[in-house]
């Protein structure tokens, strides 16, 4: 993979911030968007904009073809059996809420268990808290190993025949831990539970094969994988989706409407009430094409090299604590001495370096780590070794700047 030519596709990267070349290390929050995505969205609005699945005019047909074409691209990309299994949503949060509000509320009862982990993003905790409250089911946490990984032994101990749902992140947005989804899915299925996977941090960086993982639901966002904000995906096995009730009602999702009742469209449209996120879906389709042209394997291999280099360089900094396991996705969460992450982030920003500081929407995990907040540098296919060096220099300068207070 030639990172120089990749960077040429991202116009936003070529700017100065606070007098320095921008170093964008916050792709875990949201990725930047390449030209083919910007152009696809622009072209849609300039030439084809129209509502989908209604009207018989030419633009309407074009918009529908583009929108449904994007769904097919997503299906092929994650190797789902059918486009009936690909539901467009606003993002991972909406996808997980859909499962929690539809599947969980329909199927759980008192005495049942939902198993999650302490490394979940709030969006994979709160929907289950609410589902548990609504149904009387119990929310149970898998323990974490000291290095922030999950042991399959603990999974076998925790999942019981009472477990009906296992909800787990594929990749932790804080620790970078890559969870063994395939193995956990097998254990869940042996106990009659379904597995819901938060793929927000995995889908942008690696090839996802939902059939190979044998997950029941897989949720991810477009904006973290080069697509616009406001578009996401819920993959679900068709037999499960068939039996689930929609959670949003209105136009687009209905078949027949009578005075006091209505029937729903087939999958996947019964879950897509209202005018869908047409431009977003087209942007996601373009992003998938862009990523596949480079190759997910090449991207993953490049990021692995970059993260090894970053870990090695950051470890040189005295007083820097890195959280999470050695084997990890392309992100590093850390603290620098006793300097608060906000202050680290402000000093780095003054040098043109964008990182994330805070609790990363994972308050229970912060508690587990016994920290109030952390700083996080995250990497994507457009980041370079030189940018890692800039980060290291920036952190050394930050230490120097705060030397009187630490």
């Amino acid at each position: 993979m030639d990172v120089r030519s990749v960077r040429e596709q991202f116009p936003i990267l070529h700017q100065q911030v606070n007098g320095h070349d921008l170093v964008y290390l916050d792709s875990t929050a949201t990725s930047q968007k390449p030209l083919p995505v910007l152009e696809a969205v622009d072209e849609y609005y300039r030439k084809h904009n129209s509502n989908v699945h209604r009207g018989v005019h030419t633009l309407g047909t074009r918009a529908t073809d583009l929108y449904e074409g994007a769904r097919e691209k997503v299906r092929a990309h994650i190797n789902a059996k059918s486009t009936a299994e690909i539901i467009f949503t606003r993002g991972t949060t909406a996808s997980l809420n859909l499962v929690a509000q539809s599947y969980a509320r329909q199927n759980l009862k008192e005495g049942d268990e939902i198993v999650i982990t302490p490394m979940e993003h709030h969006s994979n905790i709160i929907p289950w808290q609410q589902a548990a409250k609504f149904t009387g089911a119990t929310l149970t946490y898998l323990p974490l190993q000291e290095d922030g990984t999950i042991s399959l032994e603990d999974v076998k101990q925790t999942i019981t025949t009472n477990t009906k749902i296992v909800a787990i992140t594929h990749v932790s947005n804080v620790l970078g831990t890559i969870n063994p989804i395939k193995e956990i899915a097998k254990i869940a299925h042996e106990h009659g539970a379904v597995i819901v996977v938060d793929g927000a941090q995995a889908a942008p960086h690696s090839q996802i094969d939902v059939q190979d993982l044998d997950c029941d639901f897989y949720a991810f966002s477009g904006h973290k994988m080069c697509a616009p904000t406001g578009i996401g995906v819920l993959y679900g096995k068709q037999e499960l989706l068939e039996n689930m009730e929609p959670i949003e009602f209105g136009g687009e999702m209905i078949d027949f409407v009578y005075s006091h009742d209505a029937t729903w469209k087939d999958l996947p449209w019964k879950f897509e009430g209202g005018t869908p996120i047409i431009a977003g879906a087209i942007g996601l389709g373009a992003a998938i094409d862009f990523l596949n042209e480079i190759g997910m394997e090449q991207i993953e291999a490049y990021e692995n090299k970059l993260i090894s280099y970053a870990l090695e360089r950051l470890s040189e900094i005295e007083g820097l604590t890195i959280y999470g396991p050695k084997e990890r996705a392309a992100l590093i969460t850390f603290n620098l001495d006793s300097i608060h992450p906000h202050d680290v982030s402000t000093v780095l920003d003054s040098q043109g370096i964008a990182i994330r500081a805070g609790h990363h929407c994972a308050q229970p995990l912060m508690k587990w780590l016994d920290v109030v907040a952390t700083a996080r540098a995250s990497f994507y296919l457009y980041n370079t070794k030189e940018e890692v060096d800039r980060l290291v220099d920036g952190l050394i300068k930050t230490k120097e700047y705060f030397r009187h207070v630490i």
Partner: protein
Amino acid sequence: MSFSNLDTLYRQVIMDHYKHPRNRGVLDNSDLIVEMNNPSCGDRIMLHLHVADGEIKDVKFEGEGCSISMASASMMTQAVKGKKVSDALSISSYFSKMMIGEEVDVGNLDLADIQALQGVSKFPARIRCATLAWEALEKGVNHNDKS
């Protein structure tokens, strides 16, 4: 590399309050405890107030957060301790305006060190850090007013 821009944010007096916070701790005779947090970043403050006869007799704070939020809390307690509630609210209103870059006349009120935080207005991402303690103060005295 020059950090002159940063120096407008991290004034020496701010760093001094951060390193040596004034009025940090708990009050045994607090009649009011206000907890506030900034849900976007996890900064947290617990403000203990002892208010009597329309006056803030004593105030202490505990909390966790960045230099700006903790220094601001320290400066706030210093500025309002011993003041009439109405004067404390005037200072708070002055502070809010300072954060959006407005100049306000506060007459003879003693502002202690809080003007050192003026530079925060140039760092929009950090304004919430500076205002947390003041929000807690307002919530506390307003609540006290009602009870």
